[in-house]
């Protein structure tokens, strides 16, 4: 009796007045509510057949309560129509109860299934659920996984069901053998090598999985053909392939290939190029007549990407031709030769109109915009786009992998393009909380570093989230204490663009350190002792554009004040005051591509540090001066050179090579070598607090801390006063284990050598103490970089009993942000 609205003629839709609506097929649901949801009202006009009926069905379906919805007409009386909504109401899923697999696996599966609770249980739900689970295990090599599903009513809620899912993943399938047929030019071994993720169960296949994974296998079939074609066999095909069961746990793979014969490049002609001459393009293409034909190579040379960006597309894309396109047309194929005509579409010269940053939810616009090298008015340049992306990631506030520049709004008639930089903020603050032994006592450290601080908002309560953020400034506060005997507090603030006009780096730091083993005695008591060191420093730095724009010049002025009261023999005198006022100039060039795991680039630093030459004008007779007089104002000059290079060897394997040199000199032979700012070599390179004279601590793994003393000297690790010349070389191979936003872990193997000398006259760069070893570094965003190394030193050091034995070294926060240890 009821008819579908489709039975009305679509040729002649008519307006009706709704006379009444009924609902049928419901179980638990309220009919009036369903009518409301259908958005049909008694008395409304409705045009049928038309959009109205589709709309009703759509809004009913959106509820996710029904397996089927129909809108029928029960009767028509003149222009009044009576409608019926027929639904097929289904029970809803209250939860999935998965059995047959481990808890961890259940969690993985749940994640992939999303949340299906509340959905209606129909065949579709059963099919998708079982499909997702099967696919999940197939990818892991369980090809015979079965999934059995039984819905049962939920005792808690009558209209709901619980779905029992019983998973049996069966055994893992591995590959017994891979055989090829039809190959002559390519050996079995070579073809097998082309299959990266499909490997046989052989002892020599140490790396990579031997499991059979359908999706990887399908990818590999594709690459197999591509690799054959890349070697000149442009007709190569995979004719057929079979995967057959060998036994319960393994399969045999058979592949039949067609090789065809080898082709070579013939004549190459160019057309459509106006901006660059054919001669120029031929030079850049680097493919000439007679070379083995490879579409892959041709594609790379024409459209990139090439590692050194010297392909044809880079030439165009770095000079504004954003819509450049090259179409190599094979004009003639004869015998084994392919003639090409490369048809180039240059398109107009594109100039950047707008630069837009999106996704900066914490960091203010100016911090991002001022680092971007693609500016309005410039021709489009892909290389600058990539460099900007890299430099944005070096700000430390954004996820490196997710920073994505994209040209949009490409307007060929005006020749303009907008560039959108999509960034994703990441947490950049660090907490250092550690306890450790130093100088025979327990030392606790609490450090906080805010890498995206905003000083101007410090009194703006609204900006606290939980601290004022977003101006790219850095604030770090650190406190270290072992209770009453030692305390150290330090503070650093830095601003990368002082004044906001030019990238002038400014930093202000201050510290105070107190050390005493007898401060609780009265001042008059002879057991009373106290040491306080206060320091303050200012640094100004400027990025240079010459010789290239990776250079930076820094000046710092530091003022250190030592105040001792009956402090014993640790210092040069036991009661008195010393001042160390120094000016440092540092010229550096840093082109490394990432702060934590650099893969390419170099970091070179040349430093000169000097104090005023007090001995020229302070009228102190240094021949008879007491230490208190001699070291009231310390004087010296210091020269340092540090260089680090990073190279990617193969894949992700990186070689870091490093050279370091340092020299400390004096102005006046009567004053002699300064006891301050000397170099101490050996060990983990961690800065340690008990050395008062600002010694510079240089790591040399494989030897105990500070144990590398000059040859022939009577010093050892515990009484080493430091040396005035040092030299160190390092070679380190690094390979990442995890490189993600939340953690970076890499393993390393090193060989290094270094030595110290008592004066420049004895310096011999080839006489070094050598060591080799292995280690690991872990970077966690809130903890910084942690390192553990095991080193073996080859050379004996007189007085050091454990030289020539293995040493473990633990380190925190080294080699970050231009550190050299």
């Amino acid at each position: 009796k009821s008819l579908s609205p489709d039975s009305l003629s679509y040729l002649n839709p008519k307006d009706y007045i709704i006379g009444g609506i009924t609902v049928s097929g419901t179980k638990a649901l309220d009919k009036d509510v369903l009518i409301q949801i259908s958005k049909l009202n008694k008395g409304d006009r409705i045009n049928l057949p038309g959009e109205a009926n589709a709309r009703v069905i759509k809004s009913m379906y959106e509820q996710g309560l029904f397996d089927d919805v129909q809108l029928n007409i029960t009767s028509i009386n003149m222009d009044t129509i009576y409608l019926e909504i027929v639904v097929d109401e289904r029970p809803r899923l209250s939860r999935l109860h998965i059995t047959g697999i481990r808890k961890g696996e259940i969690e993985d599966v749940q994640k992939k299934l999303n949340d299906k609770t509340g959905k209606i249980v129909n065949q579709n739900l059963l099919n998708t659920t079982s499909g997702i689970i099967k696919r999940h295990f197939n990818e892991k090599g369980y090809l015979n996984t079965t999934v059995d599903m039984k819905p049962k009513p939920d005792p808690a809620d009558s209209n709901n069901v619980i779905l029992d899912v019983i998973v049996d993943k069966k055994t893992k399938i591995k590959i017994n053998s891979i055989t090829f047929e039809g190959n002559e030019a390519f050996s079995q071994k070579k073809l097998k090598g082309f299959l990266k993720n499909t490997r046989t169960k052989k002892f020599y296949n140490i790396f990579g999985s031997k499991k059979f994974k359908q999706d990887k296998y399908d990818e590999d079939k594709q690459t197999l053909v591509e690799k054959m074609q890349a070697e000149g066999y442009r007709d190569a095909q995979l004719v057929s392939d079979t995967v057959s069961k060998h036994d319960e746990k393994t399969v045999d793979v058979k592949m039949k290939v067609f090789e065809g014969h080898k082709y070579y490049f013939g004549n190459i002609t160019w057309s459509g190029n106006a901006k660059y001459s054919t001669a120029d393009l031929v030079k850049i293409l680097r493919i000439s007549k007679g070379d083995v034909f490879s579409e892959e190579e041709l594609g790379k040379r024409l459209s990139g990407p090439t590692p050194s960006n010297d392909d044809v597309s880079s030439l165009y894309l770095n000079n504004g031709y954003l819509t450049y396109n090259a179409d190599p047309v094979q004009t003639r194929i004869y015998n084994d030769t392919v003639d090409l005509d490369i048809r180039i579409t240059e398109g107009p010269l594109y100039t950047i109109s707008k630069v837009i940053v999106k996704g900066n939810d914490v960091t203010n616009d100016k911090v991002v915009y001022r680092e971007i090298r693609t500016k309005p008015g410039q021709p489009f340049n892909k290389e600058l786009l990539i460099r900007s992306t890299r430099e944005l990631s070096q700000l430390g506030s954004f996820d490196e992998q997710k920073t994505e520049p994209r040209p949009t709004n490409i307007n060929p008639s005006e020749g303009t393009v907008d560039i959108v930089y999509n960034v994703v903020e990441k947490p950049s603050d660090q907490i250092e909380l550690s306890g450790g032994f130093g100088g025979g006592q327990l030392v606790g450290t609490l450090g906080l570093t805010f890498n995206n601080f905003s000083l101007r908002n410090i009194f703006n309560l609204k900006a606290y989230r939980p601290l004022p953020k977003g101006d790219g400034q850095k604030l770090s506060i650190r406190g270290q204490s072992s209770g009453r005997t030692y305390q150290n507090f330090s503070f650093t603030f830095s601003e990368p663009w002082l004044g906001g006009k030019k990238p002038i780096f400014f930093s202000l730091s201050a510290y105070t350190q107190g050390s005493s083993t007898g401060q609780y005695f009265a001042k008059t008591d002879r057991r009373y002792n106290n040491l306080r060191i206060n320091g303050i420093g200012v640094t100004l730095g400027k990025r240079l554009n010459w010789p290239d724009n990776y250079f930076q010049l820094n000046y710092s002025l530091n003022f250190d004040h030592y105040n001792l009261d009956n402090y014993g023999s640790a210092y040069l005198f036991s009661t008195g005051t010393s001042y160390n006022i120094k000016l440092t100039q540092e010229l550096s060039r840093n082109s490394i591509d990432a702060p934590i795991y650099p893969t390419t680039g170099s970091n070179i630093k040349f430093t000169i540090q000097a104090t005023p030459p007090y001995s020229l004008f302070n009228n102190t007779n240094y021949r008879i001066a007491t230490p208190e007089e001699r070291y009231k104002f310390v004087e010296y000059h210091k020269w340092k050179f540090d260089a680090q290079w990073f190279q990617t060897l193969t894949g992700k394997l990186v070689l870091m090579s490093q050279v370091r040199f340092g020299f400390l000199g004096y102005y006046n032979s009567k004053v002699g070598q300064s006891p301050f700012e000397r170099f101490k070599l050996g060990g983990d390179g961690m800065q340690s607090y008990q050395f008062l004279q600002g010694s510079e601590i240089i790591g040399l793994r494989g030897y105990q801390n500070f144990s590398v003393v000059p040859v022939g000297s009577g010093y050892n690790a515990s009484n080493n006063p430091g040396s005035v010349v040092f030299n160190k070389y390092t070679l380190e191979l690094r390979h990442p284990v995890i490189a993600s936003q939340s953690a970076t872990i890499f393993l390393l193997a090193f060989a290094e050598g270094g030595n110290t000398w008592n004066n420049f006259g004895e310096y011999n760069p080839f006489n070094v103490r050598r060591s080799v070893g292995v280690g690991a570094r872990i970077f966690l965003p809130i903890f910084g970089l942690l390192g553990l190394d095991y080193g073996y030193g080859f050379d004996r050091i007189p007085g050091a009993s454990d030289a020539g034995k293995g040493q473990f070294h633990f380190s925190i926060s080294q080699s970050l942000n231009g550190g050299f240890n």
Partner: protein
Amino acid sequence: CKSKFEKLKASNDNARKYKEAIRYYNKKDYGKALELFEILVPRYRGQEQAEDLYYYYAYTNYKMRDYTSARYHFKTFADTYPSSTRSEECRFMAAYCYYLDSPIFSLDQENTSKAIEALQLFINLYPKSDRVAEASKLIQNLRDKLEDKSYANSKLYLTIGDYQAAVISFNNTLRDYPDTKYAEEIEYLIVKAQYLFANNSYETKQEERYTSAIEFADEFIEKFAQSKYIKTVQDYKKDSEAGIVHAKNWMTQATLNMKAAKKAAEKDSVNSQSTPPSVKDKNPELVN
């Protein structure tokens, strides 16, 4: 031993949960109310009380200041119950939540654009609503924010000495916000930026760039005759004219001296190949 609330949560008595949830809501204990509403919303779907329940649920999110969830639920309410008396209110609230989620202008403005869209949709759907006036006011606030952003970012290029970028960026701001309150200031800054751009360029490029600065200056003088910047703009114009004379003299000298000309041409070609614009690294402070 479970608390009373935990027991209630674990029970299957939906009707009691419903009553308690409303009670918590009225007592402003939104945390507990939200927990109960979250359980109840799927259970009551398609039933009579669902509408009321969902309305409370959306408001609970709003009161908890979770504007992202709240706007979603307000919108869902308005989509599901278009004939409800509350749908107008919820449509407005959905847009208002976007408004509240719009950050200061120096951060990403995605929510600002979405708020404008949602408020505009509200005005289109309910042109006669009492809330139209407020919605229009909110839209104006948001547009002002986008305008401030565009102005500030253009000005940044001037501050950091990227004069060509500043000129283009300011012109884009004028095109995107034709009725901007910064019009006078922007046009003045365009003159300034173009003058500095020309002044910091190689002599070979100066004539063209100074001419453009003079054009911008003339335009400004015509449009804003009463401006407080008028004196400065006239000075820029005069200096530009002097600059053209200087550049022309230089060029004549250069042509006479073939070696210098060749050098200039080399410089220029190097410049257009490497990173443009061809701006010399002169100290901009000197010309200010």
